[in-house]
């Protein structure tokens, strides 16, 4: 399987973390909070769409709520492949980071 892009990776993780509250706005909020960078709504939609296309996410609509102008929410969920992708991602990242300490990075030499 090809590696995911950073934004896709983050969005996928956020969906996993948020579980059944995972729709565009909380995802955006979580990413913004953690990264400290103001993610725009559209920068969330694109990775979400791609992940759905790749079969890593599915989505369903909830009942309409008044604070959204009577419109539905689209809640995202991980598919089994999505979970597999997270597992693989975690493995790869840990392997990549192994042996790299923060101290060493701050000192400037291995």
């Amino acid at each position, binding site marked *: 399987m090809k590696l995911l892009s950073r934004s896709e990776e983050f969005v996928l993780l956020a969906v996993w973390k948020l579980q059944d509250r995972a729709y565009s*706005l909380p995802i955006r909020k979580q990413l913004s909070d953690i990264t400290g960078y103001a993610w725009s*709504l559209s920068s969330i939609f694109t990775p979400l769409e791609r992940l759905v296309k790749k079969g890593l996410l599915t989505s369903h609509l909830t009942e309409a709520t008044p604070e*959204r*102008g009577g419109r539905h929410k*689209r809640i995202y969920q991980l598919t089994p492949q999505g979970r597999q992708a997270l597992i693989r991602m975690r493995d790869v990242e840990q392997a990549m980071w192994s042996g790299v300490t923060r101290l060493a990075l701050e000192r400037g030499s291995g």
Partner: protein
Amino acid sequence: MKSRRHDTPPPLAEALLGWLLKDAWQTPLGDFEEFYHELATVRGARRARWWYRGQVLRLLPDRLYEKTYWHTIMLQNYFTSAYRTLLKNKVASFINLFGLSVAVACSIVVYVFLQNYLTIDRFHENGETIFLVEHTVEQDNELQTWGTSPMPLGPVLAATFPEIERSVRLNSRGGLVQYEGGIFEERIVFADEGFFDMFTFPLAYGSPAALSDPSAVILSREMAYKYFGQEPALGKQLTFSFGNDHTETFTVQGVAEAFPDNRGFYFNFLINYDKQRDLGGERLDDWAVFTSATFIQVRAPKDMEALAARMTPYVALQNAANEEWTVQSFLFDNLRHPASDAYMVQGRVAEAAHPGFILMLLAIPLVMLALSCFNYVNISLGASVRRLREIGVRKVMGSTKMQLVLQFMAENLLLCFLSLLLGLGIAWGFLVPLFNGVFVNQITLSLTENLGLWFFLVGLLAVVGFASGAYPAFYIASFQPVVIFRGNYTLARKQWFTRAFLTVQFVLAFITVISGVYTTLNGRYLLRQDWGYPADQTLVVRINGSDQFTRLRNEIHQHPNVVEVAGSEHHVGESLGGAVVDIEGVKKNMRYYGVGPRYFEALGLRLASGRFFDEHLNVDAASDAVINRAFAEAEGWTEPIGQTLRVDGTIYTVVGVVEDFLMHPMLRDRPIFFLPSGEQPYQYLSIRLQAGTAAATAAALEPVWKRLFPDAPFSFFFQDDVFDIHYQSYANLAEAFSYIAALALLISCMGLFGLASQNIARRLKEVSIRKVLGASVPSVALLVNRGFLTMLAVAAAIASPVCYFGLTALFTAFDARALHLPMGPDLFIFSYTLIFVTAALSVAMQARTLVTANPADVLRGE
């Protein structure tokens, strides 16, 4: 949140966003709104709103591109399929294309003509402040308005009223123009010096100031070309002769630029007004003499009403000078905005647009457009049967009704656009030259200079496209796929619609054909008229005054071929005089001929009772008048001899009644009379010849004339040619009518052909079964075409009375006494036969399919 207003995102932006995102994108729209609220609470409503708007703007370019992209693809697809359909149904496409392009060509020509006709004389820059002086007078028991005015009126008004900036009089008269041996009869216009200040007639060469020079003449471009060709005209000498042998040489001091197509009055030769005093002894200060037109230019048009109210003293002044012509009032009519009834004004220098004529002209393209649009509707409805499956499949595949409508409209628009191009071509290459050849008014078809034409063409495309395409498109697009595929769909419900259209088409075809046939037959009828005298034995020479008359008569009256010689001021078929006649206190505006002794004998007019003028008549003291039989009948005189007429203050006694004779190709029994004329105003010398010597005498006459009058043109005609111009213009009219009738019939029959072919294709199976069961070909042919026959019969029944009463009314409008062919059954039978045969021929080609189709082939299919 600060206020209610900020509870929701900006409505306009929200609506735009909703439009940009399709239905499937409603969820993100919700996200946006929720985020908006979040932002509003954290950062304030203003920031949130600007954010929302920003989001919409950022979305806009991409989504717009996507939307138009797909629409363009779809549009392309519409036109591709339209193009293929047109190619596939070649016959139907040709019928539609032909009809529409002919109709478009007619419309274009009529449009361009009306553009000129409705803006006659509007190009004068001072038009708003220029007024024509008219007067009203009571004649024949009705109030008439005339466009002429007394000669001194203009200068008097300009001198009296400070509101008037200047006055310009025009007077037009005939004369001979001589240059290097060539002699031509021309109309010469005399105008006051302010002419070029008042009117916008720019000069190409020379100065407008030349008009104040009494020895100068200013030419139109056409005349400069006629006399001098490519040579410069300025400084050339032209010799003018007016009546009474007065000859004078003028120097060309100006040449006008080409006049616009919409000029009403104009000039060929322009000479200073006061010059008339020297030339023909015109009494320029006499209130009893009228000039062709007086224009005044005022400083403010709003003063005109007050001015008109102050005209009463001039009415009195005029009537004191001229008892026979008692003016009721003077009026002013603006040059640019003439009164709505200006076309009724008599003797107006520039004829105003006549509403009847406009309506008649409009009728031609409207009939053609209606015919071809009906064809289109009928043929598309008929063809839709064959396309039912296509429509069904398209619908099942998810095409919306609107998309289908668009597709059919695209087909229609493509066809209309092609017809527009073709129509432009027909108009440019054929109709405009034809028009300019037949009519005096010239038209120019120019897409670069005529901006209005562009708007007209676009409008025409829209109107024709909508009129022909809208109904079929909506009708066809509304078929239900389920009904189509079940296979028992019939169009029977809508057949009355098609039939009504076809009937209307044929009503129009009948009307045009009957009119065309009638005009042609009537032309022949007029040619066959008994003239009331043997016209082939009279030769007429155009002369000028008593000197020419006396010398020529003395020279020729001894000639063996000459039986009789007479002079006259007017001449039957050529010219007439007008006079106010007072019979027992009733004033009438009537026509008369001023003739010398022996004129009746020279022409061969027949005497009904009494006597003709005495041969040794002393015209100055004469009070004899001869009337025609119609005159006596109109007055109800059983004993006309001895009755009296008062003409111009002189009392005449009727001494003879002449049998009615043809005075105009269409007039025989209009009341008319003859007065004795002195030799001074003679314009014609009529010679009665031995039968069969006409050509020889004319040849013998010419050298005599050349010897006697080397400086004057020899101009003569045979009396039996005198109506040729009328006959020719009547023949042109008949030809135009026949063209229109032929086109209308052709377009209608093409429509019939299209429908018949569809009808037969639809019923081929039924007909084959009938044939198998033993039906004969004629009976089957009758069965299939019975519907068409009924329609033709109904159309004939509607059109015949319309034509009968319409044509009768038309002749009555020209003159209640106008000669015309009585409309008998033969006219109608001939027209019916013509149409029925043409219609039968167009259907017969289809009927062949019936005869030749082998039932086995047709029925085997399924």
